[in-house]
């Protein structure tokens, strides 16, 4: 495939165009690189994230559709949750449908005067009225469009639930089955444009440049993935394999990050979930690993004579967010909560962090039954959480409307910032391993655990495989994040990062006619880093006001209590390095 076609869709005029931009793709490869540059050039500084001008960018890279486990699509937007860089990654079939359509990027802007869903078939775009599916859950919407919206090949269906329609700042976009653009509020941007769903398919097939080379590399990746024990783990227990090991090192967030040990971790462990609740595993297209775990929930109805069952995707982060961190101790209760979140279309991590903030705020008397409309919030009280979620879904009162806007918004309005566990306004991922995890969440461009995986540095230090060294730790975080910009420009699933080494990446790129050297990749990732940070800073991300939530300093992390002085120093060290990176890029 040429790997340089961009489709632009304007929802205000119902028009679209496709054009080529070889220069952009030549320089930024694809995925996060290309999307960052596109967003940067749009100069979104004075744009309200929920206004018609606010763009939605979807991008894939030059290896998608060709090699296994290059399965992600990057979504880039202005985040309504944080006000700055919005970026979220999702798997499923979306990358494949874009590849089949021959589109490397899709940019959607404008606002439809009424609810619509878009059907993209190759370079054609249809706009359909969506009044009848407005209000449908994210799951029902997929079922309906699957039988309603025809395609010209395997389709990918991405859609919002009621949360996105309400412009909940933590609304996600669901992608096919069990994958999501989960973070930073993309669902609200869809909702603000009256965009319920996008269905994509394509009929194209693209010639292989050099078959022998391609075949060799394909087989190497494929069989590495199938045979490697690390990848097997992703298939067997999935990401929930982490529950018990993290609990063991006191790093599993429990009751709003009060401790790293959850007494019922066993019940929510990957082992127990697999043994007793797993219905099946599924995979993103072209991924032999298949890490997506669907749990089954069986519920009686009508005097316990009848049963109904649901399949609900679960992963480590949802288990932390709606499980351990809310002290939910049974898989049944957890799956029920996840089912509501999935249907409503909220990002599960922000939802969990917001509920855990609310519970602690209630305990401390910052909010009361006046706000909650009579509900008493307690950690572990699954039935009340269920009611809270439905009240949020229905926007029952001002408070429940506010909960839709996430933990940072709520803490700002009601108080309790010190225990609203978010970084850069994005709800925390599920690790209390130590300062490197937190530093990664704070300084990573997406405030995601996948930015730089600081928890794995913490784990190494806990295990004694590495010694403490604040300045080296900062450097390692930056190094890891910058390498991941390359993987994310090729939109490789980060679970396959051990397979996609730099040598393999260079070889794979070479096989599709992109000849690069290690040094060039390094320069590109630096540049991407600089651009992302420039977007962040332009849009209000203040390098001088960076803090961990105060509560975390009192918590016993996997690495023990954090020394505030040292952490402060690391943050300032990190920010000066970021400033340096930006300066270097400007000098170029």
């Amino acid at each position, binding site marked *: 495939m040429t790997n340089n076609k961009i489709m632009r869709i304007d929802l205000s005029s119902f028009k679209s165009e496709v054009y080529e931009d070889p220069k952009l793709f030549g320089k930024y490869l694809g995925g996060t690189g290309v999307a960052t540059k596109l967003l940067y050039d749009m100069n979104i500084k004075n744009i309200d994230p929920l206004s018609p001008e606010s763009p939605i960018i979807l991008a894939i890279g030059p290896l998608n559709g060709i090699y296994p486990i290059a399965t992600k699509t990057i979504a880039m937007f202005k985040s309504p949750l944080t006000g700055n860089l919005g970026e979220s990654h999702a798997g499923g079939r979306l990358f*494949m449908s874009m590849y089949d359509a021959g589109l490397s990027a899709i940019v959607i802007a404008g606002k439809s005067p009424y609810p619509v869903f878009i059907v993209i078939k190759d370079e054609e775009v249809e706009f359909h009225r969506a009044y009848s599916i407005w209000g449908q859950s994210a799951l029902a919407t*997929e079922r309906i469009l699957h039988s309603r919206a025809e395609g010209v090949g395997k389709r990918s269906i991405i859609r919002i639930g009621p949360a996105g329609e309400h412009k909940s700042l933590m609304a996600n976009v669901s992608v096919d089955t069990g994958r999501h653009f989960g973070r930073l509020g993309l669902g609200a941007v869809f909702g603000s444009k009256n965009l319920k769903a996008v269905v994509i398919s394509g009929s194209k097939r693209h010639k292989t440049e050099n078959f022998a080379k391609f075949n060799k590399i394909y087989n190497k990746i494929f069989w590495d993935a199938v045979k490697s024990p690390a990848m097997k783990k992703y298939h067997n227990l999935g990401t929930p394999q982490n529950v018990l090991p993290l609990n063991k090192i006191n790093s599993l967030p429990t009751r709003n990050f009060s401790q790293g040990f959850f007494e019922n971790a066993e019940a929510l462990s990957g082992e127990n979930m697999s043994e007793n609740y797993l219905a099946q595993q599924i*995979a993103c297209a*072209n991924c032999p690993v298949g890490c997506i775990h669907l749990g089954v929930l069986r519920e009686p109805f009508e005097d316990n004579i009848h049963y109904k069952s*649901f399949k609900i995707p679960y992963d480590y982060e949802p288990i932390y967010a709606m499980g351990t961190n809310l002290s939910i101790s049974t898989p049944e209760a957890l799956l029920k909560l996840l089912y509501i979140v999935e249907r409503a279309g909220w990002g599960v991590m922000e939802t969990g962090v917001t509920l855990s903030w609310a519970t602690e705020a209630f305990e401390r008397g910052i909010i009361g039954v006046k706000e909650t409309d009579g509900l008493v919030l307690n950690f572990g009280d699954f039935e009340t959480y269920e009611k809270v979620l439905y009240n949020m879904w229905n926007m029952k009162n001002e408070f429940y409307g506010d909960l839709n806007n996430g933990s940072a918004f709520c803490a700002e309005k009601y108080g309790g910032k010190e225990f609203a566990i978010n970084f850069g306004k994005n709800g925390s991922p599920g690790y209390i391993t130590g300062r490197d995890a937190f530093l990664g969440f704070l300084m990573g461009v997406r405030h995601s655990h996948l930015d730089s995986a600081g928890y794995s540095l913490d784990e190494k230090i806990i295990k004694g495989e590495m010694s403490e060294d604040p300045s080296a730790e900062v450097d390692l975080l930056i190094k890891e994040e910058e390498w991941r910009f390359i993987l994310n420009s090729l939109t490789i699933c980060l679970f396959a990062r051990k397979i996609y080494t730099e040598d393999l990446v260079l070889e794979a790129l070479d096989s599709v006619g992109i000849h690069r050297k290690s040094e060039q990749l390094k320069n590109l990732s630096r540049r991407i880093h600089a651009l992302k940070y420039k977007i962040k800073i332009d849009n209000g991300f203040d390098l001088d006001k960076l803090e961990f939530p105060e509560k975390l300093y009192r918590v016993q992390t996997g690495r023990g209590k954090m020394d505030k002085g040292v952490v402060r120093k690391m943050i300032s060290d990190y920010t000066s390095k970021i400033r340096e990176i930006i300066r270097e890029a400007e000098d170029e």
Partner: protein
Amino acid sequence: MRKVMRVVNRAQCTGCYSCMYACSRTYFHIATTKLSAMRVKNYPGVEGAFSIRICTGCAHPDCAAACPTEALTVRKDGGVIFHEEKCIHCYKCVEACTLNAMQWDPIAREPLVCHQCGICAEYCPNGVLALVEVEDDE
């Protein structure tokens, strides 16, 4: 005894499409699912159920019976052999296959005929497909 393809563990399918990629790659040298002689069909929703349609190498193939020009002839070990020069692009073979296993290349307007080679099964990480021995009259 002859060897033909079977779906042996449908419920173990993860929907990864490695099988379809393998088939297209082998016979067309292209990275796509579209040129595969078999299909993994998706069902909507979180239910995540897949249905696999692959030529089972019939001894009395309906597709060949439906072909008006003998572009499909019965293969010794089951299934069919495609004679491209005789194909008049009528689509009757696809319609005749009750399993919906016979695939179609919409660009060449020709059937994608399974060779009963077992390569898709080799690439299935979950043991869903297999080349199995069956009795001659089966």
